[in-house]
């Protein structure tokens, strides 16, 4: 299924004026607080009736103000995890989880097994009889996520679903969202976290002040020096890779367009495709190949461009082979010390453990 | 058989007694609905299943008659009542009760107190009382002090509780309440006769209805009505 939306809506003091499309997989909506992410998602869900809009999903017209079409939310089969959990206070956790199933077509209703699986994944098995009033903030958000997933939607809208969760819990839920995505459920994912986005999203739509300021493949948007200010420490490149070998010491060799890269994922089969995230701040540059160093991954490349940043650092874009580029953030002093200029060949040192990987979007 | 009687609420004590002994004697069942004469009359006009109607004033009986609902020739004036001036007092005084005259200083006796009456423009006891005071030339001096209750019983209880020192009620009411006593009677000719007309209605088909209607005018009933202070009119 694919989603395409052109939305114009005025609120007092704020105007949303955005057009974007999202294919299958995860499309991230990224933007500052107040950028209009929730407003946009509400319009897709049908909770907001925009002044002018055309929203299509999987060929079906959800909203078309020009033709007076407005499919009511309950017919859209769009699961929505709200920024505020909005659990039903009169229902127990299990009542909330089961709520959506009764409205889903019989064939789509989640099985008992799937229900347990999701409950376990979210770690809410011991809460099933509680009321939402007796849950912690993060527990509430997890139940909301389960509730939306169990309603068997055709599209999932997630408005900062993990913001209230600790790293460990996030790490448990993210693979599940990946699985949902890989099962073909398209997801529109609002997040402030570039690493979540890098991990999940195939596409990124960056919003600012109600307008789309960048959109495209996640790798392009996240490594675009133009978005670097918005991303700050999270600027980085994405690299597609494939598992070439599982070495006996537990390390995994990936072949990427930039050459071989080693990561620690002994659990994945040879041939699996991955995506590597390489943060600019995690890449050191060296003019000669260093020796006797704990960095596993040293890639050779050529400097493509150098953009100075306001904080005295510079962002160096390296071309590694024909199809790959990565970013490195170094200090201006280092640049001068090494006399780096566009066109120079250099070695990039990647700290292996700082590589985030995903199955390809 | 069942007899359905619609009767003015002020008749309750007497009618309940009459009905009880009649039921015992005949085995017929007498069902009496007590309410204001106006409500009953309107209900009858709207088709209420009443066999017998006893009104507290001729006006509402006239309305029912105009609507053509009375059984031919059955209307009669059943009872009469006398208007009296009562005062709150306990223990009751036992002086003789004089007739009111134009010289009676009612206004002076009232002072700042109220004279309790039924509503003077709409409820029979109040209308009669106002007429009597007017014909005695006393109305203007007391009009501002009149507290009008929604029915004559309520006026009575105002005096009984001492909220109003004086009141104008029927003799029957005065007789039944020992926290008040009659200080004067209104001359019969000072107000229109206070008459309770009774009639059978078109509905009344069976013998039981006719029997009870007759019983109302019989000697036993007369005794009971008289004991309550009514003037029996036939």
């Amino acid at each position, binding site marked *: 299924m694919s989603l395409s939306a052109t939305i114009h809506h005025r609120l007092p003091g704020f105007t949303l004026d955005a057009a974007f499309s999202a294919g299958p997989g995860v499309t991230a909506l990224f933007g500052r607080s107040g950028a209009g992410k929730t407003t946009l998602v509400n319009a897709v869900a049908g909770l907001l009736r925009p002044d002018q809009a055309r929203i299509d999903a999987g060929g079906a017209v959800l909203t078309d103000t020009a033709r007076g079409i407005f499919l009511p939310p309950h017919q859209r089969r769009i699961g929505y995890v709200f920024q505020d959990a*909005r659990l039903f206070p009169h229902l127990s956790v299990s009542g909330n989880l089961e709520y959506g199933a009764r409205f889903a077509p019989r064939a789509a209703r989640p099985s008992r097994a799937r229900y347990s699986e999701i409950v376990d994944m979210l770690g809410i098995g011991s809460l099933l009889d509680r009321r939402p009033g007796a849950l912690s903030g993060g527990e509430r958000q997890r139940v909301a996520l389960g509730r939306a997933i169990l309603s068997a939607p055709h599209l999932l809208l997630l408005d900062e679903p993990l913001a209230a969760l600790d790293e460990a819990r996030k790490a448990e839920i993210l693979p599940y969202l990946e699985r949902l995505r890989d099962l073909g459920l398209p997801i529109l994912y609002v997040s402030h976290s570039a690493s979540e986005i890098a991990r999940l999203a195939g596409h990124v739509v960056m919003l600012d002040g109600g307008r789309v300021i960048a959109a495209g493949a996640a790798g392009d948007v996240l490594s675009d020096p133009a978005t670097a200010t918005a991303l700050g420490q999270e600027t980085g490149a994405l690299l597609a890779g494939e598992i070439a070998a599982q070495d006996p010491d537990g390390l995994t060799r990936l072949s990427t367009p930039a050459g071989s890269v080693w990561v620690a994922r002994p659990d994945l089969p040879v041939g699996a495709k991955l995506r590597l995230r390489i943060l600019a701040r995690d890449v050191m540059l060296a003019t000669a190949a260093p020796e006797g160093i704990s960095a596993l991954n040293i890639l050779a490349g050529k400097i493509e461009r150098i953009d100075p940043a306001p904080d005295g650092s510079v962002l160096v874009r390296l071309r590694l082979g024909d199809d790959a580029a990565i970013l490195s953030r170094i200090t201006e002093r280092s640049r001068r010390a090494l006399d780096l200029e566009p066109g120079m060949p250099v070695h990039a040192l990647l700290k292996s453990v700082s590589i985030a990987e995903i199955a390809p979007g | 058989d069942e007899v359905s009687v619609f009767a003015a609420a002020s008749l309750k004590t007497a009618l309940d007694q009459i009905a009880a002994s009649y039921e015992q004697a005949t085995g017929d069942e007498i069902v009496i609905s007590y309410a204001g004469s106006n409500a009953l009359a309107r209900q009858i006009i*709207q088709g209420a299943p009443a066999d017998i109607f006893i009104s507290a004033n001729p006006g509402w009986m006239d309305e029912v008659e105009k609507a053509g609902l009375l059984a031919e020739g059955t209307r009669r004036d059943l009872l009469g009542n006398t208007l009296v001036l009562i005062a709150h007092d306990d223990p009751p005084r036992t002086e003789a009760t004089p007739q009111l005259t134009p010289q009676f200083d009612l206004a002076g006796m009232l002072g700042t107190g109220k004279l309790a009456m039924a509503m003077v423009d709409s409820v029979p006891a109040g209308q009669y009382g106002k007429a009597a005071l007017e014909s005695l030339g006393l109305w203007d001096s007391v009009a501002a002090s009149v507290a009008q209750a929604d029915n004559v019983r309520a006026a009575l209880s105002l005096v009984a509780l001492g909220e109003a020192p004086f009141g104008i009620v029927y003799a029957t009411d005065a007789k039944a309440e020992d926290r008040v006593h009659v200080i004067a009677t209104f001359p019969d000719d000072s107000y229109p006769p206070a008459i309770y007309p009774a009639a059978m209605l078109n509905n009344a088909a069976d013998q039981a209805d006719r029997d009870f209607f007759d019983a109302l005018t019989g000697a036993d009933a007369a005794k009971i009505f008289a004991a309550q202070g009514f003037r029996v009119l036939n």
Partner: protein
Amino acid sequence: MGWLSSDEWQAVALSLKVSSVAVAASLPLGILVAHALARWRFPGRGLLNALVHLPLILPPVVTGYLLLLGFGRRGVFGAPLAEWFGIVFAFRWTGAALAAAIMAFPLMVRTIRLSIEAVDPRLEQAASTLGAGRASAFATVTLPLILPGIIAGCVIAFAKAMGEFGATITFVSNIPGQTQTLPTAIYSELQVPGGEAQAARLVAVSLIVALGALLASEWLGRAVARKVAGA
């Protein structure tokens, strides 16, 4: 029990029946009207609101009289209802229930409406994203959440129905065993010299019944509220 006459027992039983039926029968309409007033925008909303409040504003006698004109045997609605459907209100306990229902209706609607207005519409939105249509969302989310309000509305309507006098006696008269409710029985007693003691006993009965309902409802309302609040 010996301290009430059989007519009086009948009045107690009748009052209970009349009040319960009045509340139960008008509840669905009450919820509908309350919902319409709280959440819908439609022409004639103001008029509907006014109509609902009428019985409160008018002296009960007037309401009773209008009922008599409308639903009496020869009434505008009463006559066709009786002829075509065999439904008769006039001088039946059903009429007393109709009068009580109409007199209590504004109280019921106001109360329920207020609690509907207090429900966060974002919860209904959440239900809609989970596939619940308007009616389903109402039944599964709004309705349970306003349960305390519905209970409150029913209690206040029941209490009002138990005390209703003016419209009842004007509409269906005061026929023992058929339309004589507790309040009209009390009225009858008050018409009799020395009837205060009798009336007081009936008042006591009336209080016991209504206050029992009140306490039960408080308890019920609290239980429901606790359930919603969680724990």
